[in-house]
Each structure stands twice: as structure tokens, then as C-alpha cells.
């Protein structure tokens, strides 16, 4: 069973490479039960979007 610390590391890694099937399943299972990590996951996606838009934001 994954804990939140491991789940966050996996979510981050998932942004940089394809996770293995056991990793994906473990993560899915953890996210079903953990609202903190679900929020974390959504926030990671938001960070990525923000970074892509950042250079064109002129003061």
C-alpha cells in the first residue's frame, strides 16, 4: 500500500515518464481513498499549465 509521501513522488514522476502498470494501479487505488492526494494531483496539473503560460505573461 502506498502512503501519501510515496503517492506524491509517483504523481510527480508520472509527469516526467510513463508509470508502470503496478505503479498506476497503486496510485489509482490510493487516490480513490485520499482527498489530500487528489487535490495534490489536480494542483500538479495546474502547475504544469501555469509554467507553460508563464513566459508570455508581461507585466
Amino acid at each position, binding site marked *: 500500500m502506498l*502512503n*501519501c*509521501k*510515496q503517492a*506524491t*513522488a509517483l504523481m*510527480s*514522476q508520472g*509527469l*516526467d*515518464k510513463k508509470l508502470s502498470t503496478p505503479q498506476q494501479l497503486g496510485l489509482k487505488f490510493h487516490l480513490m481513498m*485520499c*482527498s*489530500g*492526494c487528489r*487535490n*495534490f494531483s*489536480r*494542483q*500538479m496539473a*495546474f*502547475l*504544469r*499549465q*501555469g*509554467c*507553460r*503560460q*508563464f*513566459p*508570455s*505573461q*508581461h*507585466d
Partner: protein
Amino acid sequence: MSRNPYNTIPGNCYTVKMEDLPATSNNLDDDLASMRRDMLKFARLQLRDEAAAEDVVQEAMAAALGGQKQFANRSKLKTWVFAILKNKIVDIIREHARAPTAAVQDEIPEDAYDDLFDERGHWLDDTAPTGWGDPEHSFSSRQFWQVFEICLTRLPENTARIFMMREMLGLETGEICKELDISETNCWVVLHRARMGLRLCLDERWFNSENLA
């Protein structure tokens, strides 16, 4: 503000087809000026040195424009200019970091975020991430982008550089690590810590602060 409201994803040259976006300017000078602004913003954060940023952008623009005729459209030119810029920045980072592996990996210590979790590795009651509502709404706020920049700047230098190469230029970790001569595992560790730091910073300074309108 950018003159072209659609011109918002310059770093992401590898996946976004700029030619699919509506063109609002037919003027090459305007395009180049806006491209230059985007690059400067990126280079400034990467190098944290105004003069060096100006120089590197100047060189990249000159190198790219030397071959201007080859470009069928301006999105290709932009991709090319950013690729040159990236290479120049990588060279500068290499010159500055004699032992990048040790330096980069320890910038944010391994135990930096241990406080967020209990001994079993679960979020504590007051550290579990709470929802950010509809965070994309913040993209239209000028103050939000100022906070975003502050948070990026607060990351340690090399950590921020690797993070930006990954997230703003959209480079693969394999490519970044090879260029900087660090292992891919170290690269993931650095990126993860950068994301943890940036998330916490935005959480504290924006999403859970009174700045949020």
C-alpha cells in the same frame, strides 16, 4: 500585456502548433519584439542576471535571424530561437556548475518536506492539500503571475533551472539530465522537490491568502 492574446505558450514549442492559432499580427517586427520579451523573461529567471540574460537573448536572436529565410512560418522560427536559447543557457549552467550532480540534488535537502507527513508517510491534518477551487481562473490575474514569479525565484537556482527546462521548454528528463550530466533518477528527485516547493509557495501566498479576489 502581449499584443497577441493567443500567444501564451511560447515555451511549449514542442507540442503546440502555433500555426493553428489565429494570427493577429502580420508584422514581423511585432512578432520578434514579443518573442524577445518572452525569451528575456525566461532567460532572466534561468540565469538570474539581467546583463547575461540580455546577452544570451541577443545572441540567440542573431543566430536565428541569420538563417531567417529557411523558416516557412514564424512558429518554426520561434521554436528554433528557443532551441538556440536553451542550448546557450545549458552551456552557461555547465560553466557555472562544476559538479552539477552534488550541487543540484542537495539544493533542496531530502528531508525538506518531511514535516508535511506523519511517521507513516501520511499527510498531517493541517498539511493535506486542500482544494484550490477553480485555479485556472487565476491565469487572468496580473497579481497571480507576480506571485508565480516570486515562487519560481524562491526555488534554489539550479533546481529552478532544471524545473523550467522541463516545464517551460517541455524538454524530456533524459535530455535535460544528459545535457547537465546528472542521472535521470536525480533529475526526477530534483523535479519532485521543485514541484513540492512551488505548490507550497502558491498555496501559502496565493490560494490561501487574502490576495485571492
